[in-house]
């Protein structure tokens, strides 16, 4: 098409003094033909699309392997069979298709791992399903692709595909409650955690904290990132986050608690034990 | 019964369909003789027979709402249109009283036939009761013919002028789309007999598990058929009207003016 236009532009230029050309107002046969041909193309494309759709997105399993819940602005993942809970980091065994149910705790979110699966919206009150499968081990980046408010940009998550054996041991580790810390500084951190309002939102297995508003922290230190991808999970960054989450991620639902330096040290020491 | 078996055995040869179809053709030949337009009429009869005798007819008979919808659309929109096209050009379709042929009446007839037969009680009755089903079939064909008359009447002067015809068809499309939208998005079952069919052919397992036709999906497809492909039928008719309007652009004669 572009070729025809280019050809017309080069070949049929007006030069000074030329009269108007022959006044062709159309040609019924040509017009009918070029209406019919796109019709055929469209039908072919439609059939192709229908086939791809059923291939790439088969109907869901009766019970999902994994329930993923979108929150403003992080992802919660619950393994239905084992009961393991993760946040912003989903582990899957290589070569096995996982049936995933998508849900939302607040507004619309959209679950998208470009390299592994189609995207699907997380709609409150309307669970959706997709299949998630990786052929090769590796870490794949996932994002939220439906605008969901202030920190839509930082609602990343990682999908870690690993061998079935590694996956099994990861899942077993995730199921273990947090061990009581032995180092004194970390013990003070736990005490501080239980004393302040952290427990209103977060859960840590093995402690009194069971709230599900914010991410489960039982295995916080095992994760690669903090704040749904905004910073790497290092002790220094964790300290920065605890000191003032709003400085790191404006609008995040976690308020700043104005901890003292000493308290920050205690908390970081404790959280670093949560492998 | 498996899918293959059903496609082979799901045909209904008995019943009144074949004799009635043959009679219709014979009547046509007796009235108008053999002419080229017979092709349209034969297509109308053929399609009508197919909707009853083919596996679609069997499915529509209590198994699938979507198959029923296909039948409904064919009988109301396609068969009467083809039949009208099959009439000789000179045949007048003047109605008495004249009000019966008024476009508003015809429009209400066509759209009403769509809506009224999908009231839950009537929809169920048409499946469970033979006489009601027969009444439904006859009324769809007649009301469909009444609906198409202002568009496809053989004589030009009995048709609506193109712009009015476009409005007429567009309005009908919107009215049927609204019903299609209700059926598609409705969280409740509209036609309950299809939700729990009497499995007289041992087919239900194939439909539910093999084809994945849950009652919800079945109703959704029924609604979508009414919403989207039916609009394609109206759109084709609208484009035919546009073509009719623009055809003969060069002819200066003022036939109507």
């Amino acid at each position, binding site marked *: 098409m*572009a070729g025809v*236009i280019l*050809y*017309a532009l080069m070949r*049929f*230029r*007006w030069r000074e003094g030329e009269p*108007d*050309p022959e*006044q*062709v*107002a*159309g*040609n019924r046969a*040509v017009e009918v033909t*070029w209406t019919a041909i*796109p*019709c055929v193309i469209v039908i072919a494309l439609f059939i192709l*699309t229908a086939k791809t*759709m059923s291939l*790439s*997105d088969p109907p869901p399993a009766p019970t999902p392997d994994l329930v993923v819940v979108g929150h403003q602005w992080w992802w919660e993942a619950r393994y239905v069979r084992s009961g393991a809970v993760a946040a912003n980091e989903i582990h899957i065994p290589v070569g096995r298709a996982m049936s995933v149910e998508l849900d939302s705790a*607040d*507004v619309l979110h959209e679950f*998208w791992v470009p390299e592994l699966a*189609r995207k*699907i*919206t997380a709609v*409150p*009150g*309307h669970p959706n*399903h997709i299949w998630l499968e990786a052929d090769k081990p590796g870490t794949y980046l996932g994002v939220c*692709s439906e*605008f969901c*408010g202030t920190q839509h*940009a930082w609602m990343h998550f990682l999908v870690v595909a690993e061998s079935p054996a590694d996956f099994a041991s990861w899942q077993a580790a995730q199921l273990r409650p947090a061990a009581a810390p032995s180092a004194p500084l970390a013990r003070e951190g736990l005490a501080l955690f239980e004393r302040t309002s952290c427990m209103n939102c977060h859960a840590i297995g093995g402690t009194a904290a069971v709230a599900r508003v914010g991410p489960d922290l039982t295995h916080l230190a095992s994760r690669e990132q903090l704040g749904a991808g905004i910073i790497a999970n290092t002790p220094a960054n964790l300290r920065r986050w605890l000191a003032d989450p709003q400085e790191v991620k404006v609008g995040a639902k976690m308020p700043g608690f104005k901890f003292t330096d000493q308290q920050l040290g205690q908390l970081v020491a404790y959280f670093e034990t949560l492998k | 019964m498996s899918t293959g078996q059903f496609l082979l055995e799901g045909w209904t040869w008995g019943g009144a369909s074949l004799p009635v179809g043959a009679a219709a053709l014979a009547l046509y030949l007796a009235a108008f003789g053999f002419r080229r337009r017979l092709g349209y009429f034969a297509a109308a009869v053929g399609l009508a027979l197919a909707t009853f005798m083919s596996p679609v007819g069997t499915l529509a008979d209590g198994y699938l709402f979507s198959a029923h919808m296909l039948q409904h659309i064919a009988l109301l929109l396609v068969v009467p249109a083809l039949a009208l096209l099959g009439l000789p050009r000179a045949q007048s379709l003047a109605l008495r009283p004249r009000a019966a042929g008024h476009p508003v009446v015809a429009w209400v007839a066509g759209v009403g036939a769509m809506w009224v037969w999908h009231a839950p009680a009537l929809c169920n009755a048409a499946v469970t009761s033979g006489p009601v089903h027969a009444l439904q079939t006859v009324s769809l064909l007649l009301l469909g013919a009444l609906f198409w008359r202002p568009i496809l009447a053989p004589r030009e002067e009995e048709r609506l002028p*193109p712009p009015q015809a476009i409005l007429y068809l567009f309005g009908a499309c*919107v009215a049927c*789309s609204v019903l299609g*939208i*209700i059926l598609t998005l*409705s*969280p409740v079952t509209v036609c309950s007999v299809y939700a729990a069919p009497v499995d007289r052919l041992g087919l239900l397992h194939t439909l539910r598990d093999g084809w994945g036709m849950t009652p919800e*999906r079945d109703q*959704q497809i029924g609604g*979508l058929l009414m*919403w*989207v492909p039916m609009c*394609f039928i109206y759109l084709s008719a609208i484009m035919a009207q*546009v*073509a009719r*309007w*623009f055809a003969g*652009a*060069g*002819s200066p004669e*003022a*036939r*109507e*003016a």
Partner: protein
Amino acid sequence: MSDLSAILARAGLATPEEREHWTMRWISTVDHKRIGMLYLVTSLAFFAVGGIEALLIRLQLAVPNNKLLQPDTYNMVFTMHGTTMIFLVAMPALFGLANFVVPLQIGASDMAFPRLNAFSFWLVPFGGVLLHLSILAGGAPAVGWFAYAPLSEMPYSSHHGVDYWALSLLVLGFGSVGTSINLIATVLTQRAAHMTLRRLPLFSWMIFVNSFLVILALPVLNAGLAMLLIDRLLGAHFFLPPGGGSAIMWQHIFWAFGHPEVYIVAIPAFGILSEVIPVFSRKPIFGYEFVAGSTVAIAFLSLLVWAHHMFTVGLGHTVDLFFVASTMLIAVPTGVKVLAWSATMVGGRIRLETPMLFCVAALVQFLLAGLTGVSLAAAALDWQAKNTYYLVAHFHFVFVGLIVFAILGALHYWFPKMTGRMLSERLGKWTFWLMTIGFNMTFIIQHFLGLAGMPRRVYTYADLPGWGWMNMVSTVGAFLMAAAALVLAWNLAASLWGGRRAGDNPWNAWTLEWATTSPPPPLNFERLPAIRSRRPLWDAANPGRPDPVVGTRWKADTFAPEKNRTAVTTFIISESGFFAVLILAYLFYNARPQPGPSAHDLDVAKTGLFSLCLFASSLTLWLSEVSLQKGRRGAMRAWLAATVVLGAVFLLGQGLEYRGLLASGARIGTNLFASTFFTLTGFHGLHVCVGLVALLIVLALTRAAGPGPGRPAALRAVALYWHFVDAVWVVVFSAIYLLPRLR
């Protein structure tokens, strides 16, 4: 200020005697040409605002992890950018062109309703200012231009930005519907003799078809906005899942409007291409009938494809497939158009002046937009590309690549007619090349960004391989476009001040607007050329080889109904769309039983009795019309008064029904039954009130003067509206009162 008046006077846009009070003259104008120009000026002003917002977006995204804008600021900026560009730039620009051009092209002296025209125009700046007032009232909306629920609901957007957004869209929507009713009435009732419907120039034809799309689509949005506002301000739960509402319902309603909206701005652009390309190829359009007919098909199909915006929301494959089919089908009539424009150029003598340059670029860019569009229609690809920069690039190729380029082409094409002065070709070519290079630089690369996985609407992004430089290229391109806009502004100003005189027909074009002076006199034409074909000026200039005569075979060709009835009929079509959405919402939300008040608490017998009063009032009004026809003024007024009384009695009945419900503790936010019931009957009651006021006005008019000329038309128009309001009640009464008792 006096300088400006001098410029206007030089450009022939203010007569010498107007120079003193030119501001008042322009503000109070009802002349379609001036209103058209006011629309364009408004559009250009908001184009500057939306453009600055676009530059802010591109600056923020120029480098990874940028901290130029706060996240919420960025979210407000892109929301305002989208809303502004669509509702305050594209729509007003196209309405402005339609306003200026259509009456001229059809040989009319003005629009059918000049004062309605002025009113509809002034709603645009009013709506625009209202939208921007949100910034002072706690912050602009930050929900995207389609304001997906539940993010746009009170719990997640608690400041008033969304309320301002919804209200201003309602205001703008009324204006759009008003203008479109006016345009339909103008084309149907104001055409010059012999300008039959089949001889309409393609631009006017497409505006005519498009206006129907506007009056059908906008009311759907209005209904959705009303429901959103009721949620936000009165505590209902239409779109809030925790209260039983449905987030997906908002998407259905929004896109039932939103997809036609894309075509509402695209079809006039098609019309521009269909005017400019033939003139600058020196050939008639190739296949007028196919181009005109495909417009009808596009308009029709555009109402039937909205669910393709929802392929990822989980409607299921069944639904998706139907909408894949209908969406792909749109490619056919669109392709027919593209082929027709290209074939028009083949064998022509192409003059590449600025208007043609813009239109050819629009055509080529639209080709690419069409290709990416078909790829997005394939649901399987949409599941990857949706909500990424691939989609952003696609719709910018439509909105900028096609529509803005076509508008710029139109501006260069018709500016000489508006002002009597030519724009500078040299500056025009600068604008064109800066714009074209800038545009393609900005948006071609965004396709690749999208395929690399960059989601839209992120205020920043991580430093992933390739993302940084690609975004930087895009940003640089945006600034080239800004430079083009500056050159354009300079060109416009310089031309107004001292541009070359245009003469009546600088492009040697063929439609009627070029048969009058530039700028045209207040009533447009002193004398019209003979109209026998679609190109009257070609026939006049080439008596030796005129176009074939387009016949007047159909009565419909010369169809020219009474204008008041036309307007009310059109208005009724529009209102039907509004009520259809509310009634569908009622049926959807009440399909399942729910705790709290329900339809079974209503008193059918009593309301049925009051309904009979309303139905009877249609009868009395009909009798009044009959009396008018027979010239019996007394009887006419008596029946009219009876109608008013019966209508008032019905309203009284509604009041009693409300009192009963309120006494039982039901409020509009109590449950979904209460929300839908009060919304539906409330809006119907509002229409009854409007009808009563109109009837009272007619009653008063008939007292003041005899049934002089114009009065019968007024009565018939109001009667039509009143019958419609009654007909709506038949449906509403059946849905609310009768249906639950059938089950």
